[in-house]
């Protein structure tokens, strides 16, 4: 691993790493560019998920650490992550960039020259997005935005309202929504029911999204009663308990990995978010 202070240096570093890889008969494979926007408080959690991800989705990963309070700086490290594959290795490039001060306000200009041509760009935004110009700029270069609204705290309604604004511009995935899928299957299996009230024991995001989903699918208001818990463990509709789904909930790296396999808009999710944010569906 070595440090670069400009995009040009990063490109040279990547070239050198590629040469090393081909000397060892390694394969360099990319199926996408994966951007990760990681504010300081998410740094540790992000490292763990990324470690499990690169092996399953060989991609060029660009991890951006914005530090707007720091002095102006641009420090990048490039590395090749290789995984055994038969008698060879599959290698994926990981570029980590620290953007300090004003530089953290213009991430697209850093990212654009580093995207792998012709392949999709996924942007994972850690934490609650500010929905400001920086966010718009980075989402503008991505084909898909991946968020986890569980990371957004309790005041979710305005955040979902803001997120709903993005649906016209980009395709959005929400890991909190993905976590409800096992339960949505059980709810679909338990239908028909009136569905005027839902009680959810889980995160605030899961509860809000499930209530939004029911409201949008059944086209009527749904009253939500939420009991806080770290994982989704119980759901009742109209006072009737829904059977728990079989098996264990998937780990975070699997959820993110599954989202990276999807390319189309999830209109059911969009409907749930609009209902949760109290936004009318577009004409």
């Amino acid at each position, binding site marked *: 691993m070595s440090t670069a202070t400009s995009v040009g240096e990063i490109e040279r570093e990547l070239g050198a790493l590629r040469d090393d890889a081909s000397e060892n008969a390694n394969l360099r494979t990319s199926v996408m560019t994966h951007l990760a926007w990681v504010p300081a408080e998410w740094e540790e959690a992000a490292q763990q998920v990324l470690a499990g991800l690169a092996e399953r*989705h*060989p991609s060029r990963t660009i991890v951006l650490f914005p530090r707007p309070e720091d002095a102006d700086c641009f420090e990048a490290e490039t590395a090749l992550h290789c995984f055994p594959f038969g008698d060879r290795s*599959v290698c994926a490039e990981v570029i980590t960039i620290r953007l300090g001060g004003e530089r953290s306000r213009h991430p697209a200009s850093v990212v654009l020259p580093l995207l792998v041509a012709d392949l999709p760009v996924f942007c994972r935004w850690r934490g609650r997005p500010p929905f400001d110009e920086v966010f718009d700029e980075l989402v503008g270069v991505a084909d898909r935005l991946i968020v986890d609204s569980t990371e957004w705290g309790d005041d979710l309604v305005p955040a979902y309202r803001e997120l709903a604004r993005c649906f016209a511009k980009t395709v959005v995935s929400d890991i909190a929504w993905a976590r409800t899928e096992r339960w949505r299957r059980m709810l679909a299996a338990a239908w028909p029911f009136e569905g005027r009230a839902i009680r959810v024991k889980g995160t605030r995001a899961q509860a809000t999204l499930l209530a939004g989903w029911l409201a949008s699918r059944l086209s009527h208001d749904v009253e939500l009663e939420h009991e806080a818990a770290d994982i989704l463990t119980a759901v009742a509709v109209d006072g009737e308990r829904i059977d728990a789904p079989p098996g264990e909930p998937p780990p975070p790296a699997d959820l993110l990995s599954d989202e990276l396999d999807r390319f189309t808009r999830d209109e*059911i999710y969009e409907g749930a978010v609009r209902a949760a944010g109290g936004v009318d569906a577009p004409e």
Partner: protein
Amino acid sequence: MTQVEQQQEENPLAVGLQLRRTPDPCAFVIFGASGDLTRRKLLPALYALAYRRLLPEQFAVVGAARTEETDEEFRARMEEAVKEHARDPFRQDVWDFLAGGMRYVATDFADDRGQDELAGVLNELDEQRGTRGNRVYYFAVPPTAIATLVGELGERRGSRGWTRLVIEKPFGRDLASARELNELLRPHFPEEEIFRIDHYLGKETVQNMLALRFANGIFEPIWNRQFIDHVQITVAESMGIEGRAGFYEQSGAIRDIFQNHLLQLVALTAMEPPIDFSSDQVRNEKVKVLRSLHTPGPKSIVRGQYGRGFVEGEEVPGYREEPRVEPDSLTETYVAAKLYVDNWRWADTPFYVRMGKRLPRRETAIAIQFKQAPHPPFEEAATEGLRPNVLVVHVQPDEGVSLSIGAKVPGAGMSIRSVHMDFLYGGAFRTGLPEAYERLILDAMLGDATLFTRTDEVEEQWSLVDAIVAAWKRDRPAFPNYAAGTWGPPSADELIHRDGRSWRRH
């Protein structure tokens, strides 16, 4: 409207959930349950399906074979098989689900009492496990036993539920016996209930041939006689006959590989785009290719048999020295042929095919060799290292696709060499490839016959084999004619050299 679409239309909450197709409740009956296939492939495949929750909740497995065994003994043996051969870690809850509905019936296939007992066990399972009279009968038995079984099953066929027969290769040993078998099946089971399995069609890379051809705009326009010089298909095994002399003496390479796997690969490579991916449309197109295959004359076909030699540094016996093989056996362990597909797309484009045992390495690949650039504006010396463009679909091992292109060697002057661009399945999609049997067993349970061989396909395959074998009856080859661990007899090289071409280097 499909079942999934119907469910979604009625249920607003089901919309958008990726509903997996799960088979109806059913009992899966394996005839030949004491055999190697059951242990190595079928049970591990059922376990993998159970592991991924792809089997119906109401499910039962019934093993049937001649060996005397209790239910407990059968379950214990199958548990060992799963532990040894499954691609997933052993999970007690998954195994308990499978073992809970697992029974064994000892029966001689011609024995009425055994068949009655089987029918009784299946009725019991309908009650206990809710399998609703739905049956998949998997015939992992020789063709002679199938004939008896089919009659017995047909007579005992109940009115409840559906029945599907999965029949392992070889389906007959020539056109006459294949037709006879079809005639035996027809009164009891219509074509849509018969699933003739060729496990090659369950392989991801074989199906990828269809994706490569019909999902990419760049290949199909050049996939014809104007741009393709010739096609080479290799099905090479480094193994010998692994103690299967009884089977192999009867079949040889032509019935073991050529009739089924190899002709399927030819059909997938040469077929026209189907209108859609329904089972009949895909199979209609494959049958057209098989019908237009030109029967090769004696000069266009080479057979061989391996003698003593070295494979991976180890000395191995010749075919005639293998246990229970006749010392003067004329069974071929190698076949090479030049085939022509007589249609508008492929006229005069040879398909060179070769398959054999005890070759230097295990490899199945389809290589499309394109014509040379019409007028390279370089000096002859510049292109010495340049070979024609070849697109290779690697079926096994190293599943993937590679394309060789000419590239300039860096430096002053102009020198051009061939380089490879590789796509490796495992490199881009880092998930384990499912075993062919998993896909095929699931498809049979779902009633999807796209990846199974239809009556007319099998009959076309056999008529080609019959024509080749008829010519062989007239002469006595000097066997063995290639040493184990080499790429076949010299006559196979002559076959392709006569046309000014050569087999791909490995």
